[in-house]
């Protein structure tokens, strides 16, 4: 259950809340439907869990719908997901048929909702082909791509593009993630909820409880990376960085990640990580359930050094969460991490396990820099990446797209 808008006033200030209420008045009664593929795991579902109730509180008629699919459907959509991010994947004509059939079955179930909505926001590739089926739509349809599709595996994009270009507009998290499409392409970075179980303040007892639960030594520095077990997150590279640091400093490493029902590849990556760890008792590999938000929060707050050593990244909401806890981040020099991590201000961008090890050692030997950079990082998130900013940009988009005008200044 998400908090009401008033609960955020102490964090972002009354002017920001007043602004949102004013914008909500302009959109009162507008019917907004979000469509995604899973309620469990992944940042998209987390965003909608707070966004939908807050839009409702502001006077919009907002809801979200889930498309259901078989295990085979999610294997195919995972391949599509990987293909859009540049991975060479094999998706046969039969697979694309399964993809379209599952969407068609879901469309039949949800047809009345989507045909009457003022704005439909379809998230990511899994439900993207729904638009092909909705011939009698009267509202505006927007495709929201949360991942980096700037260098896709062309055969996958060639098919998906035929669906994407039918939308009235698309949204990307960063300009660098986009593909040319024949409609307006808006840019809206995602955000975090500072009051969610994953981000709220924890008391010392909760922190010490988590430390005991996972057998972490309070006297040795703790390195942590939390993200899905995914090759693009480079968990093996993190283990290599740990081993380099370990030669000179007795550190511990936690690699923690959740599973998602639309991510069957995660299991194989987890097995590779366990093999690379070679039974080292100071490498803690944790497969967390999707609801383990408080555990993730505790691990983030217990960490001395935080890593997000991705080699390919969407926006990287995990990085935002770290920074909200007042911690600098050592992140891969890719995707949305570059938008958030500014060298020597909010963390360090690295390209190799060696680079990560270098920055880990630097921070361990300059503890005061951890506090300074962590403070800057937290304010950076407060001003740019909390859900209130995210909500404002969606409301702005709805106001603009409903007006039907394309002027630089739009009075509403």
């Amino acid at each position, binding site marked *: 259950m998400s908090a009401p808008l008033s609960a955020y006033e102490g964090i972002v200030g*009354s*002017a*920001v809340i*007043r*602004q949102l209420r*004013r*914008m909500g008045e*302009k959109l009162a009664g507008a019917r907004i439907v979000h469509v995604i593929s899973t309620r469990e795991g992944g940042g998209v579902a987390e965003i909608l869990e707070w966004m939908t109730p807050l839009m409702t509180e502001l006077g919009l008629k907002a809801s979200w719908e889930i498309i259901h699919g078989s295990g085979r459907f999610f294997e195919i959509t995972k391949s599509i997901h990987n293909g859009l991010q540049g991975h060479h994947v094999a998706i046969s004509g039969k697979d694309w048929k399964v993809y379209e059939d599952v969407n068609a079955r879901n469309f039949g179930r949800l047809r009345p909702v989507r045909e009457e909505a003022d704005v439909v926001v379809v998230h990511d590739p899994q439900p993207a082909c729904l638009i092909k089926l909705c011939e009698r739509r009267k509202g505006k349809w927007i495709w929201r791509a949360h991942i980096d599709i*700037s260098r896709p595996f062309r055969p996958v994009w060639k098919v998906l593009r035929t669906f994407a270009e039918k939308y009235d507009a698309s949204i990307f998290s960063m*300009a*660098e993630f*986009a593909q040319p499409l024949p409609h*307006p*392409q*808006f*840019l*809206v*970075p995602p955000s975090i909820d500072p009051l969610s179980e994953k981000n709220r303040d924890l008391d010392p007892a909760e922190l010490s409880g988590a430390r005991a639960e996972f057998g972490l030594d309070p006297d040795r520095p703790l390195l942590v990376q939390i993200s899905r077990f995914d090759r693009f997150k480079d968990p093996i590279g993190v283990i290599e960085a740990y081993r380099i640091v370990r030669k000179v400093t007795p550190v511990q490493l936690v690699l923690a990640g959740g599973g998602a029902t639309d991510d069957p590849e995660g299991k194989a990556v987890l097995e590779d990580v366990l093999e690379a760890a070679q039974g080292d008792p100071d490498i803690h590999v944790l497969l967390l359930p999707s609801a383990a938000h408080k555990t993730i929060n505790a691990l983030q707050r217990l960490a001395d050094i935080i890593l997000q050593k991705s080699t390919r990244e969407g926006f990287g909401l995990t990085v935002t969460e770290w920074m909200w806890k007042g911690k600098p981040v050592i992140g891969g020099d890719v995707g949305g991490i570059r*938008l958030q991590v*500014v060298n020597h*201000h*909010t963390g360090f961008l690295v390209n190799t396990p060696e680079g990560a090890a270098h920055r880990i050692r630097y921070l361990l030997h300059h503890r005061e820099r951890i506090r300074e950079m962590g403070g800057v990082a937290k*304010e*950076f998130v407060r*001003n*740019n*990446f909390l859900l209130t*900013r995210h909500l*404002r*940009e969606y*409301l*702005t*988009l709805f*106001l*603009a797209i409903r007006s039907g005008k*394309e*002027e*630089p*200044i*739009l*009075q*509403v």
Partner: protein
Amino acid sequence: MTPFEVKDCALLLRMSGLSPAGNLRELRERIAGCSENVLFHHYCETTLRTTFDNPDYRNDFAVWAKLYLGDRVLAERLGILDPYTFRSLEELRTATLEVIDERLGESLMVPWARPGDELFFLESTTVVFDAGIRITQPSRLGAFIRKMTDGSVYYHFLEARRRPPFGKDDFTLWLMENEDANRPYILALASVDFYFHSLPHLRRELASVLTEAKVAK
């Protein structure tokens, strides 16, 4: 005096449709041909956009020259261009192109960025709406500004300079309805070197100078 109607605004950012620039010559071509809306965005709207508050430079071209072309000389020359000192965006465009042409003439090779580090050209729609607040007393302006959103500060103090009468902010225009009586406030606002401020910093600065002017008055 007529009450000051406080407006608020929010940016909706979008791709301009221009191809990204991968080197300095491409940057020159895009700037020469882009719309004024694109130019305005990369010079002026960066303060309201989701971004790091304290970059080395306020305009995107200077930041890109430093970080991705690795050309610090060009970055410094572009970084000092203050868009609010030009009478029009066309004059700003001309000045920008002169800086780039000068640098191209000095360079033995065209500076280029790695794939993935291109400059993307953006523009935005500014959605403006009534904030529902009216200010009736000039002496209270500072207190109201202190509580304004970033959007209101941006719209009335920065974006206003793009609207006629060119180069004037909305607060000053309102105060000029009774120019003699409000001269201390007008001078206080004119004293702020605003281009290099983030919006939270600018809000504090405006509120501060107006409060000082009120005390002095």
